[in-house]
């Protein structure tokens, strides 16, 4: 069975170490938080200036001074800390976060990420913290469907959309498979870690990137 968004989020959460400091990009990656309970020891960072960010606020908890990077009201758990934007991005740029989970339009075999701009004729470009997130964390995980609605693959030999970061993605979590990037002698070797409702051979046929099985460490 292919994975639902929620199952993808659970699969990402499984690979996040106990006690890690993690930034979840806006959109689908936010769902990963639902699978990181208190027992995970994970501390969430939001780039608008908070560590140990809590869950979405409901009802009377909503406070316009307390929002996440998607401008959704959240709550403040015990042990939180606030800081300004320059300190927040210093934290990210300085490689202090263990994991960042991002959405993507495309990821290349070499780990290049494109997730900020489609170059559609009428699109207004907006980058936010995407480029900082892409190069900041120790590990950058991408969470996306493997194929776009028109059927084209989003894991590609080279990104055709404008890049967000170069060679920055280490793992790609999709509805059909989990991939590990950056292997091989040229750093362009894509390992299939796990498949869901499909097979390695089927993936090898549908994707234009060079694949290998994850256990083939050579």
């Amino acid at each position: 069975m292919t994975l639902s968004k929620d199952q993808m989020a659970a699969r990402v959460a499984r690979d996040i170490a106990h006690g890690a400091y993690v930034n979840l990009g806006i959109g689908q990656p936010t769902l990963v938080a639902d699978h990181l309970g208190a027992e995970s020891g994970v501390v969430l960072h939001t780039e608008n200036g908070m560590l140990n960010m809590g869950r979405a606020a409901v009802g009377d908890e909503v406070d316009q001074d307390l929002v996440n990077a998607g401008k959704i009201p959240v709550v403040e758990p015990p042990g939180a800390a606030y800081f300004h934007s320059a300190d927040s991005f210093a934290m990210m740029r300085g490689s202090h976060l263990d994991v960042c989970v991002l959405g993507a339009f495309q990821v290349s075999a070499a780990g290049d990420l494109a997730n900020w701009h489609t170059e559609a004729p009428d699109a207004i470009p907006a980058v936010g913290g995407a480029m900082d997130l892409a190069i900041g964390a120790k590990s950058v995980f991408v969470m996306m469907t493997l194929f776009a609605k028109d059927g084209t693959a989003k894991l590609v030999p080279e990104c055709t959309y404008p890049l967000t970061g170069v060679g920055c993605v280490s793992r790609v979590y999709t509805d059909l498979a989990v991939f590990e990037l950056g292997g091989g002698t040229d750093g362009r070797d894509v390992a299939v870690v796990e498949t869901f409702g499909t097979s390695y051979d089927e993936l090898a046929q549908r994707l234009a990137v060079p694949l290998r099985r994850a256990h083939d460490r050579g």
Partner: protein
Amino acid sequence: MTTICDSAAAAVAGIEDGATVLIGGFGLAGMPIRLIDALIDQGATDLTVVSNNAGNGDTGLAALLAKGRVRKMICSFPRQSDSHVFDGLYREGRIELELVPQGNLAERMRAAGAGIGAFFCPTGVGTPLAEGKETREIDGRTYVLEYPIKGDVALIGGHRADRMGNVVYRKTARNFGPVMATAAATTIVQVREVVEVGELDPEAVVTPGIYVDRVVAV
């Protein structure tokens, strides 16, 4: 010396046509709405505005844009669900946009406030936002040279200030305020309450009065 002003109108007096205005806030959190409203009434035009977003809905920064007072926006994330005012102006070619990754926006203003002439930053390397910029390899990593962003004026939304101009913020409304306060020739802060000197904890002051020219309680 910090002046405690009686009104938002008094606080924004003297802002000149053509000024570069840094406006705090991340979405509505920390947005100095009353100062922006006063700036609209004050009438300065041909402004360059530096802010993380480019206005939400029809009030605040969006209203300033709608009046045609802004020649150029320097921001990280103009496109939002409710950024129709900016979107319209941009599509009609009536406003310039300099798109800056969010962390670079913060760090470039921090550099302006800290007397740093320029800095080598890893964010955006290999992306369209670094095109034409000087790059250098340092210790095996590629960096882009980024320059300070200085403001003539900063408009900031704080929480409380004392009569010496020391300011504290509240939760994630802190965001760009403390950085912008250091980067502008004249820093104007709206707060919810002005308190007597001695009422703020010296360990918890985020923006010391040295950075604050005018304060108004709204």
